[in-house]
């Protein structure tokens, strides 16, 4: 369990030599590591409590892996048994090879799969078919350059990638919650779980590589019908100030924006002409941009709130055609939902309704529901793993972090994954 041990620990500060202890949780930046909006969702919450209580024995107890991490354990072990111990010889790329072909490249392929001979026979075809399934490659018994490129990466490449994702699974608590929401930003999907069983899933839109959706764990506490969209200051500066300059007052009016001098209760409502737009654009002047509910509102008709410092939430959108895209990393960081009312009904037990057009109608959840926004570039499937594009480049950064900070060479050490 070395791997778990070095992952999640409470951060404790010995305040003075008399061992007075103050404590806070290890807090990730949301990019390489999970950021915990609610401390109770930290995997080591129980251990943290034990440390605060000064309970010696309990403070050494490791958190039980959650069922997602366990699935990684099992799948990784299976992967290593099937593919980890094979020769890692390099195969030349070239014309596709299939049953009946022979020659040096076939010989190299046979060697790579622990077989012998210069002929592409049924045994090799079977191995290639299995390998393709295990790596989510196009099905078939042929060896094209895509397969060869995968083989030439070597099993350690995949073991490392799987291990990084196992780490991310281990960032989730042992008890994920009776009901919980899992957003996988890498796959741009949302999953609704109940009693550890998948109940429903939907496509989502997540942040671009420049505005990535952070990894968060927090409790969903309420929904908002007829929501305002409160535009964060950096988006006002970087995006909307220029649009307001270009489009003039008409742009502000037609888009339904209200302007305020700040975020406080004493903020003054401003007209278009009250604003020095160039100062807003340069960041010298802060301006609160609020979009009224209605068609075109950035939050759609409902938003789901778990207050956090990143300003990232789940919400509806009126731009529904975007869900047909294969690559849906196009938002400013929020998670836009394909089926917001399905989620609303599941969360509230019924579809939330209102007879009023009043803006920002808050509907509290009877029971708060954990939301985990994570990022999985390798996911266990029945035959092996589904490998996804690392759209935010987080695998490299996490790999560097683990090597530099925690345990050098840990990710190459196969003994960590018995």
């Amino acid at each position, binding site marked *: 369990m*070395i791997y778990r*041990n*070095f992952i*999640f*620990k*409470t*951060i*404790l*500060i*010995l305040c003075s*030599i*008399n*061992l007075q*202890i103050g404590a*806070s949780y*290890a*807090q*990730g*930046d*949301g990019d390489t*590591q999970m*950021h915990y909006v609610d401390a109770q969702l930290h995997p080591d919450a129980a*251990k943290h409590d*034990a*440390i*605060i209580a*000064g*309970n*010696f024995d309990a*403070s*050494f107890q490791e958190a039980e892996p959650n069922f997602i991490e366990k699935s990684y354990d099992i799948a990784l072990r299976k992967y290593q048994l099937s593919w980890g111990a094979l020769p890692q010889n390099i195969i030349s790329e070239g014309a596709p090879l299939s049953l009946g072909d022979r020659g040096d490249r076939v010989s190299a392929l046979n060697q790579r799969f622990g077989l012998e001979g210069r002929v592409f026979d049924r045994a090799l075809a079977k191995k290639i078919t299995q390998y393709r399934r295990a790596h989510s490659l196009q099905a078939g018994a042929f060896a094209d350059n895509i397969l060869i490129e995968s083989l030439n990466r070597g099993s350690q490449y995949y073991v490392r990638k799987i291990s990084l994702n196992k780490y991310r699974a281990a960032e989730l608590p042992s008890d994920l919650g009776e009901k919980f929401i899992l957003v996988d930003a890498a796959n741009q999907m949302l999953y609704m779980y109940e009693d550890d069983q998948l109940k429903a899933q939907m496509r989502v839109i997540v*942040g671009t590589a420049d*505005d990535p959706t952070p990894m968060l764990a927090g409790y969903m506490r309420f929904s908002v019908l007829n929501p305002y*969209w*409160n*535009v*964060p*200051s*950096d*988006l006002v500066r970087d995006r909307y100030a220029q649009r307001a300059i270009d489009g003039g007052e008409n742009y502000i009016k037609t888009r339904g924006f209200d302007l305020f001098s700040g*975020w406080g209760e004493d903020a003054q409502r401003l007209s278009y002409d009250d604003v020095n737009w160039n100062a807003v654009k340069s960041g010298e002047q802060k301006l*609160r941009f609020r979009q009224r509910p209605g068609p075109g509102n*950035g*939050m759609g008709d409902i*938003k789901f709130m778990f207050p956090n*410092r*990143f*300003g*990232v*939430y789940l*919400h509806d959108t009126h731009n529904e055609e975007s869900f047909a895209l294969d690559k849906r990393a196009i*938002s*400013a*960081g*929020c998670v836009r939902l394909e089926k917001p009312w399905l989620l609303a009904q599941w969360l509230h037990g019924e579809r939330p309704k209102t007879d009023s057009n009043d803006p920002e109608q808050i509907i509290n959840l009877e029971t708060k529901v954990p939301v985990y926004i994570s990022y999985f570039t390798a996911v266990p499937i029945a035959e092996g793993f589904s490998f996804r594009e690392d759209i935010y480049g987080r695998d490299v950064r996490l790999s560097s972090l683990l090597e530099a*900070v*925690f*345990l*050098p060479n*840990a990710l190459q050490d196969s003994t960590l994954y018995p």
Partner: protein
Amino acid sequence: MKYILGSLTVIGASILAANPAYAQAQNGQELIGNTVDVQFASGVRNIVAFGPSGQARITSADGTLSNASWFVRDNQLCLQTGSVSECWGYNQRFVAGRSFTMESSCNMTSQWTARSVNPAPVAPPPPAEQGERG
């Protein structure tokens, strides 16, 4: 008292043999709730468990268990049983799985290897302005 760690007899200056590349004052937070293997040149091996409120348990190779306390003072990591203490120079965080050669105030050299450590605190990201990113 059996041969546990050095001799736990003298408090004094000591040296961290592993040259710290980023030496700074440490407080031992990375050790809390974790265990460290301590190996002496003689082959004697002890396991030290660092508890949350300064408690420590030292287990020798033959299973003998000793309760102790631990603390950090003046860049030294100290263990104390009863009225006797032994200290080791300590100005670099332990790293899980990495061995450090340390010399004690009792002039005993030993290798310390933390099995696991708590991570260094991560600087929180700057707070976002209020609002929803959309």
